[in-house]
């Protein structure tokens, strides 16, 4: 049994250092396809978050039973069942959003981030850290989706939270912000090519920040030595 990692480490890793979207570059298909508006991105992000938490918890609870030879098919069964449950629940309670997201809800099954966390983390740790890891990874993925969605919606059609009633009911109709009035739209941002470019920029930004963070301790260490 591995030593149990600290909760803060789990959260920081899943959300930032090892972010599924920006560092591991997993689950890019839904990431790029559904991030054209904030609402779509948030809807898929929350669905993925729910699936990740449920799967991690289930896998961790069953980890004593899952022998190495059958762990992968067992993960697949668990993930497929979970995603289908989430899909049915969305169809029942968020029907309009379900219709917009369409095929990308069932396609959560193929998000490698989920089976990746099941294999790399949940199957080796206790239920609570596994649940926390699912939460961290899922919210990290969701955050990247929402940031991409914000950028693309803003640049592509000059609005934010367009169609928010799909997620928040009638109240959402008042949440739409027309950031740039009379905007003529910028098609590239709405097309998949724009998603690739935006993601590339985000990855670059993340790398810059990480590089700075690494340099700072070094620089301060060097400064201390010089003194």
């Amino acid at each position: 049994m591995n030593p149990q990692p600290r909760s803060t480490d789990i959260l920081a890793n899943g959300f930032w250092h090892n972010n599924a979207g920006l560092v591991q570059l997993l689950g890019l298909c839904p990431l790029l396809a559904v991030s054209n508006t904030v609402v779509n991105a948030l809807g898929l992000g929350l669905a993925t978050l729910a699936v990740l938490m449920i799967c991690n918890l289930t896998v961790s609870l069953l980890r004593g039973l899952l022998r190495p030879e059958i762990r992968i098919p067992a993960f697949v069964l668990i993930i497929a069942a979970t995603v289908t449950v989430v899909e049915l629940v969305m169809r029942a309670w968020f029907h309009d959003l379900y219709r917009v997201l369409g095929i990308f809800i069932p396609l959560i099954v193929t998000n490698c981030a989920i089976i990746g966390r099941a294999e790399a983390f949940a199957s080796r740790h206790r239920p609570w850290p596994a649940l926390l890891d699912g939460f961290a990874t899922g919210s990290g993925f969701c955050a990247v989706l929402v940031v991409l969605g914000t950028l693309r919606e803003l640049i592509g059609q000059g609005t934010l939270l367009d169609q928010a009633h799909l997620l928040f009911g009638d109240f959402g109709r008042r949440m739409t912000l027309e950031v740039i009035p009379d905007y003529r739209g910028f098609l590239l941002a709405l097309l998949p090519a724009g998603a690739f470019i935006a993601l590339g920029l985000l990855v670059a930004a993340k790398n810059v920040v990480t590089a700075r963070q690494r340099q700072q301790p070094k620089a301060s260490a060097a400064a201390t030595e010089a003194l």
Partner: protein
Amino acid sequence: MSDSNRISLLKNAGLLALIGLLGSLLLAFTYNVTKPRIAEQERRAILASLNQIIPAGRYDNALQSDVIDIHSPGFFKHDDPVRIWRARQAAVPVAAIMQVTAPDGYNGDIVLLIGIDTDQRILGVRVVSHRETPGLGDAIELDKDDWILSFNGKSLRQPPRSQWSVKKDGGAYDQFTGATITPRAVVEAVVRALQYFQSNQREIFSTESTITAEPAA
């Protein structure tokens, strides 16, 4: 194969079967819990789009269940049956709403709801689903553009049949900047629906409803 191997194999198979069984039970349970609500949501979604075309005050029958399906792939150029909802006021036909598929959009099928009143005029057209290019072809959606409203009140007499095309083809309907194929496909689908309605109006309203238990998705 040694005995211990065989036992381990059986254990693994049993374990997988057990997980599969538990998953199926969970799914069966969720399916049963959500089923009535999903059916209700789908009915509501269909009724909401039908009511965009014909206001709820103009008919008094159960619009959703007064339905026939027409199989005429040769005429409509698509394999899917054309579903027709019949609106009646005091049992007198008011209008029909046809769900037709334009097969020749820029990115495949465009599913449309086309409402036609008994004077053979268009009550309204709405796009149910499409995969046209965002920012170009998606101006057929009412959320994006008013273009789809330009069909309101039109018939095969006004404009004349020869004008039922986009301006680029010499017709009366605007195309979009950068997208001609999409509006062309929609205009042609609307014409087909009008022509079908004109030649089959009596049958459309007199045929017994073929409502199935499950509303179309």
